[in-house]
């Protein structure tokens, strides 16, 4: 198939890549740009491990085509920390032991960051429903929910 | 003499016989004597067994000593997740 040229912004950097018309954004990120922080757990939009933001909106990158992102802005896990300063969510996830194997962690952090940008004071129920599209098989979610609520409280206080 | 109680797969392989009295001072000897006493047990013993000596389970420890008068049970191969 003929490859397409796509120009986009990823984590604030201008990036150009070639991709096939049927290639997903997740495959482009992982296989062409070596941004392997976004994970493929299902390829069908059911697990959330590939969560990224597209023009500020939370999406599963396995459901977006690479060709669709021309001229748009993408945020991935690799852009969540600010230089050597971790995002408060990243610090709180470590502090609360909110990860065991860590495969779902990038997607959950991207999703949780997106939640807190919209709703700085979510209830436990709101956090649980916002993250309902991000599967975690290790933790039982308890420590994840606590970490997100604690981050929200800290960010509101700051 | 050590009294050995076979459970599960081992008992099945021995055609339902569950008790053997054997001379053995360690697990390897015990397994050898068992195989001699009932060759039908050989394939199961080769596959691997778990041995309990006085309540402690051993999976692969051939030269674990079996003190006289200890209570010994044999089970099929065990593994966890």
């Amino acid at each position: 198939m003929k490859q397409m040229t796509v120009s986009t912004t990823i984590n604030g950097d201008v990036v150009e890549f070639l991709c096939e018309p049927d290639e997903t954004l997740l495959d482009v990120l992982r296989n062409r740009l070596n941004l392997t922080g976004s994970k493929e757990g299902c390829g069908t939009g059911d697990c959330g491990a590939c969560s990224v933001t597209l023009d500020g909106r939370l999406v599963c990158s396995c459901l977006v085509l690479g060709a669709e992102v021309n001229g748009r802005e993408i945020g991935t896990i690799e852009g969540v920390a600010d230089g050597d300063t971790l995002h408060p969510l990243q610090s709180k996830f470590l502090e609360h032991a909110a990860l065991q194997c860590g495969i779902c962690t990038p997607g959950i952090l991207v999703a949780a960051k997106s939640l807190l940008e919209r709703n700085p004071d979510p209830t436990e129920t709101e956090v649980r429903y916002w993250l309902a599209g991000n599967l975690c098989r290790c933790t039982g979610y308890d420590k994840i929910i606590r970490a997100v609520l604690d981050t929200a409280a800290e960010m509101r206080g700051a | 003499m050590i009294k050995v109680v076979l459970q599960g797969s081992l008992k099945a392989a021995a055609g339902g016989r569950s008790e053997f009295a054997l001379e053995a001072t360690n697990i390897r000897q015990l397994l050898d004597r068992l195989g001699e006493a009932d060759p039908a047990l050989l394939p199961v013993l080769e596959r691997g067994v778990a041995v309990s000596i006085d309540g402690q389970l051993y999976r692969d420890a051939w030269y674990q000593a079996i003190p006289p008068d200890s209570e010994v049970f044999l089970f099929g191969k065990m593994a966890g997740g």
Partner: protein
Amino acid sequence: MPLDNNNRVFKSVGTSPLRPDGLDKVTGRARFGADATASGMLWGRIVRSPHAHARIRSIDTSKAEALPGVKAVVTRADFATGLDGDIGDILENVMASEKALYQGHAVAAVAATSPSIARKAAKLIVVDYEVLPHVTDVDEAMKPDAPVLNEKIFTEGLAEKPTKPSNVVKRIEIGHGDVEKGFAAADVIIEHSFRTEATHQGYIEPHACLASAGPDGQGELWCCTQGHFMVRDTCAQLLGMDVSKLRVTASEIGGGFGGKTTVFIEPTALALSRKANRPVKIVMPREEVFVASGPTASSSIDIKIGATKDGRITAADAVLRYQGGAFPGSPVEMGAMTAFACYELEHVRCIGFEVVTNRPKAAAYRAPGAPMSAFAVESVIAELAEKLNIDPIELRLKNAVKEGSRSSYGPVFGPIGLIETLEAAKAHPHYSAPLGPNQGRGVASGFWFNFGGQTCTSLNVNIDGTVTLSVGTPDIGGSRASMCLMAAEELGIPYESVRTIIADTSSLGYNDVTDGSRVTFASGLATIAAARNAIKVLCERAAKMWGIPADAVIWEEGYAKPAGANAGEFEPLSLADIAKVAGNTGGPIAGHHEVNIETAGPSFATHIVDAEVDPETGRTQITRYTVVQDAGKAVHRAYVEGQFQGGAVQGIGWVLNECYIYGEDGVLQNAGFLDYRIPVASDLPMIDTVIVEVPNPGHPYGVRGVGETSIVPPLAAVANAVSAAAGVRLTELPMSPPRILVALEER
């Protein structure tokens, strides 16, 4: 190594510091199975049987081989020959020879320059199948007229040797006493049949590997696995390679729960790589994870328990039928051993049948075999409590095993903590909290053996006084942090001064897989021993520096000190002081330990659950959950809690939603996370935990494994809560809304 001293005061152990691999995991830098690449890398794709049972007449690979970009095609002919027994079954499961035994069974594979070419090439492989009758249900498979999978299976363990092959691999029996006598002494007898469906471990990371092999007989493999030494040894046999020539590195692992204790795609990637003489990466699509990895057994179970009016159990009897897919190996024996392990019984019997069906070969899943039999037994115990009008925890306490009790499977227990978990559950505020309308409360207990096994570690003291620890057990849930804690504890240095890595197969001696809840126990014990060996060297060096005999030096809280006044007056030397001049006092300082450790202590748990059943829709909401479990000694408290919580939630999924649904055609109907629905955050409440600590006498700190026991009680605990809320006993898993609605209507 026995327990050191029960009154020992710990400095590091028992805290919850940040994990050493944490930064990589929250920034996306951690490298999991699918994250590796190599120069000239090809993409592998496996061709799988669309049929549940079929004879393979022929495979035509010519069209695929002719497609531009295809660099290798392999079939069974590219693997070793002459393997039988368990290793033969593993090979047959990795790549079918004469018959495809389940939908998804691998029959061929391709490697090509891009994923899309590999996908196209896989479709060009023409397999001529003769479709055979199939069977996927355990009870159906046991019937005399069922299609037989394997003509070589003649049931073992029957009074009369069978003359015909069948799908029943063996009949096993566990127990002691005379159950008929026991039932004769009972005032009440409860009897029920139960069914559980197969579930999948559901790790979020699909199996993935990157293989590199060539005509020189050497190879390297990067893969997500619970045991890279097992992968190396198995692959070497399946490929006919020397073990020493295959180096396997364990990537970060995105969950396993037992499902990554064997090989599926790794030997195929190596075979493709060897043939193409280029690196090959294979990543299982999620659908293939469901149809072609190793879910757990489904089961059909009968339980009969008798008791006196005052609640003493007089007899317990069970028949367990577990299908473990297309090959022998269903965990029925462990199901039988664990079924009644919580109870002290004079008369007990468990009969088990191991059955094969046209389903994927079962792999281990967290406490293999135990959750299903515990579901059945603990459901009957709950009903017994109801019938006798005795509090369910009191009933369990009356019959609970303790140190000195004979277990249902024979051996006498050493120090164990079941009673402690029951007492803690009884005292927990959850147990006496009021319930709302349509809510019910359930309780259940559970047991798991825990295992030790072959383990070795290497601890190296660095020039700046920090320590590098190499272990051979993949870190599946924070175990590197626990290893750092134990090394720091022994050496008397800060947690942050220890760095633990998972060494590859060429850098450390053999280690058994991360299974049986063994890592914190066994690798931890080997770490403590390695640290003590390093301390011996440190003391020798201090003695040299002071010019006194080595036995006149002791190690205390990170310092070498003279043993007493007679040894002389010397300023204590820190580990860093000694490390700094190691090159001048005799060279590198290290400690090693190699062991096959067998003193893992069994672990018990008791769970309390509140469930609310919507009478309109049949939907269940878990409203409160408390896990009480014996950890022996919690090394990293937060990760111990995490194991408790994770096991409970996997159990909740098993009981309420998860199941393998097969069509009449033997094809899996729900091979994806949309239709195979594991619990999501909005399904659940917080999961409360209570860590009980009854020390294991077979570990210096008293550690017991904690990973598996946590999934044993929840099936029954939730089932008991749902049954209480619905006012009717439910006996079949999953307790999905349609099934609950039917039960409510028939109430």
